[in-house]
């Protein structure tokens, strides 16, 4: 059983060059239960990535704390796998070696870690590319490898920071289905940050809407669409209704950002 608790977590970036300190995140509470798929939706600059980086341990909260199964997060660790928006595969390692990176760091023998890596390569549909360098892969293939790399570590929770943000629409839709398929089959606790409304509904069991800077949770919406979901669900009345509601929520926030800019 996995429980992630975010308790009164806030983040203020210190003043620089005489500017006032920036409040990126208001004190925020959020509880994510076992095998939950939570998507965080918000306009750019709403602190959603900051929140995710704090959960990952890559950034420290100014106040509050994050606990995973009762243990406070003080730094990054293998129990929280992360997929970044930028392509972060190690360019000097092949696809297989990239996916086995975490296992190797833990001292898993080569034969075993290759077996695990190959299983994940199949799962993300990259069979035949085991020995390719990241440079030889398309953006979508690189992100599939990054997801496999995070999953191969068997983390308690998977954190994704707009992982499909740089991909074209068609590739993005396929990647969403692939990720959802993995979740439906293997059950994982997932926290997924995005600014794409459709993506947030399609993937999530719960959508957390964040307000513009300083970021805080504005609304929480349950997505009661049945699983397994296929791309066809995106045109059902239920989906469209949810989308309309979220468009309104996000629009007011985006307008606030535009006015302040």
């Amino acid at each position: 059983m996995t429980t992630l608790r975010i308790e009164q977590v806030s983040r203020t970036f210190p003043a620089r060059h005489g500017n006032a300190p920036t409040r990126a995140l208001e004190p925020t509470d959020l509880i994510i239960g076992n095998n939950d798929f939570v998507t965080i939706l918000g306009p750019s600059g709403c602190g959603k990535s900051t929140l995710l980086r704090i959960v990952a341990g890559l950034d420290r909260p100014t106040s509050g704390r994050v606990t995973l199964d009762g243990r406070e997060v003080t730094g990054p660790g293998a129990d929280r796998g992360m997929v970044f928006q930028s392509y972060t595969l190690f360019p000097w390692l092949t696809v297989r070696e990239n996916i086995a990176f975490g296992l190797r760091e833990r001292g898993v023998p080569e034969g075993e870690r290759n077996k695990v890596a190959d299983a994940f390569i199949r799962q993300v549909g990259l069979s035949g590319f085991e020995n390719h360098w990241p440079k030889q892969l398309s953006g979508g293939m690189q992100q599939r490898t990054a997801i496999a790399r995070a999953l191969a570590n068997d983390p308690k929770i998977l954190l994704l920071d707009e992982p499909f943000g740089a991909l074209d629409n068609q590739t993005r839709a396929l990647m969403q289905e692939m990720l959802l398929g993995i979740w439906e089959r293997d059950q994982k606790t997932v926290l997924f940050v995005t600014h794409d409304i459709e993506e947030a509904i399609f993937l999530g069991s719960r959508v957390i809407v964040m307000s513009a800077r300083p970021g805080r949770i504005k609304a929480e919406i349950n997505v009661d669409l049945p699983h397994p979901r296929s791309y066809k669900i995106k045109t059902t009345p239920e989906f469209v209704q949810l989308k309309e509601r979220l468009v309104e929520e996000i629009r007011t926030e985006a307008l606030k950002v535009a006015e302040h800019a």
Partner: protein
Amino acid sequence: MIDHSDRLLMRPLDSVTSKQRVAYGLAFFVLFVALWSWATFGGHVSKTFLANPLTMVQEGYDLLAKQGFLFDIGMTIWRVVGGFALAAIIAVPLGVLMGAYKPVEAFLEPFVSFARYLPASAFIPLLILWAGIGELQKLLVIFIGSVFQVILMVAVTVGATRRDLVEAAYTLGASDRGIIRRVLLPSSAPEIAEILRLVLGWAWTYVIVAELIGSSSGIGHMITDSQALLNTGQIIFGIIVIGLIGLLSDFMFKAFNAWLFPWRLA
């Protein structure tokens, strides 16, 4: 599409074929020798100051066949490689440490930046005093000339490692040691190899200077001897040999790096 039908000889940043590249490269050597021949055979420059290409080749043959010049070449190569290897063994780990750990950088960087500007050749009299005129002195000149340069450049390279790769490694459970061994080192390795290739080229200039003073062997020693005899043919032959060795070692270094880091070219 850009219309190339009316193209001139070249356009900015336009590429050349590998055949053209070789042809252009050779053309300059031909032009160079032609100018040299014109100046010497044509009598525009006195023989005392500049030997003609043919004399140079004859003197070169004489040097190799009768005066044991191959031994001098061997000595010079050993000094360069020895002093340079010594510098690399110390400089690369230090540079990596400086790049990885900011306190180490803050501690060493000011001194290394200062020492980098000390001319290696100015140390020769001091080094002769300390180490005599033996091999150690020659190695030390190369060492002083290379070590600080390599330290600084390696530190900058390691310090510029992509942060997102480091963060990714941390979220995959890497320890601090793992970050250095499995992210900082492999990501900087090709750059470090390039730095070594570059500085090896500079080491060649130091070795000749070191051999000009207080030496009984080596290419630089031969050049000083030839100067006393006004044998410009031998001097030029010596210089050309250095150039050829440099070209060859550069080529080998490049090929070795390409073999070592295939992921860069993929």
